[in-house]
């Protein structure tokens, strides 16, 4: 089973994403901000991270930069998943190292197709 870490400060979004991911046979863990997510990655590196942009403590972009400096056994795929849907934000995320980008709101087919694109579904 593939593993996915959902990083989002919204419990509702985490719940929706978890439900979809579990139907896609992922083992899911959650973090409420970037700092929690870094701690989770150090403990157990997931195959893919679903990453929100705006979060307290450490934003998605800050997390992405910090992740690059972590001595992880393998770099997880990172899929930004955010309401920041403008081209400038998308470009910034991809240039910072994100593998894919999901614009909220999303549905099961969208998420599944993005996970297939990054090779984890």
């Amino acid at each position, binding site marked *: 089973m593939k593993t996915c870490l959902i990083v989002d400060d919204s419990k509702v979004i985490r719940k929706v994403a978890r439900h979809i991911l579990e139907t896609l046979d992922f083992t899911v863990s959650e973090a409420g901000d970037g700092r929690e997510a870094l701690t989770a990655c150090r403990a157990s590196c997931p195959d893919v991270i679903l990453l929100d942009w705006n979060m307290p403590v450490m934003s998605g972009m800050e997390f992405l930069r910090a992740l690059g400096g972590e001595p992880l056994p393998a770099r997880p795929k990172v899929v930004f998943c955010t309401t920041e849907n403008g081209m400038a934000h*998308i*470009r910034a995320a991809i240039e910072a190292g994100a593998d894919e980008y999901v614009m909220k709101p999303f549905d099961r*087919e*969208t998420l599944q197709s993005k996970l297939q*694109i990054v090779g984890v579904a």
Partner: protein
Amino acid sequence: MSAAAHGQPTIDAGSAQVFAALLEARTGQRIAAARSWKFDAALKPLLQSLGLDRVEQLTARLMERHDTALADRIVDSLLNQETSFYRDAGVIETAAKLVHEQPAPARVWCAACATGQEPLSLAMLFAEAGGPMPEIVATDVSAAAIVRARAGSYSQFEIQRGLPIRRMMQWFESAPNDQWVAQPKLLATIAYRRHNLVTDPAPAGLFDLILCRNVLFYLAPHLREQVLERLAAALKPSGVLLLGAGETVIGQSERLRPCRRARGFYERVGAPDTPERLYTAR
């Protein structure tokens, strides 16, 4: 609890028969009795746009006024326009490679292209590969679908299905109301036309690649054979045909056979031997 709440169809049998007959007469496509639930969901947006509460009111309006435009809208609603970018991505990439092996100018026919995601997927692959751009003819029986395909405009949900974000950044622009529009230079590589696979002759000329995915299984067996004959006749001697994953020519056409160059594709019987590599995308 109502029938609708149980997920059962609420449409009356008479209306279902009228709409099924209309769809078959216009397109050759059949809706099986077991799938009559489809009417309710498919016609709901049309009912709302017409200010009608029940399907029976739509049936009455259609039959009282002999309204051709209304009949078109009903047929458009009932057609399955489900599609996405890079649907069955490995096969689409193989299809593009097969076209590139053909002498230029290569020609491609996307039959039943719905709202255009399939021809655009190919156009992006061709443009990124460089070299002479193949001519792409894309057709659909639905006038509404062709209008949408020509506009190249997709909702946030549509644009995200199957399209890698880097390609979206390269080939699409954001537009108001959460729309994403294909760049004019990409759209200009595709000639969109309304075309009925059952009643219309194939577009002029022969093709190196024909895609006709997920349509044949809606057709009656004799119409399926007829359409396959037409597709076979439209292929160049070394051309290939791609059907949907659950569709086949076996037992339905004597002019087509599984392609020896690429698994999942079909070629004309008597196609020249080609020693090129074997593709195994499917």
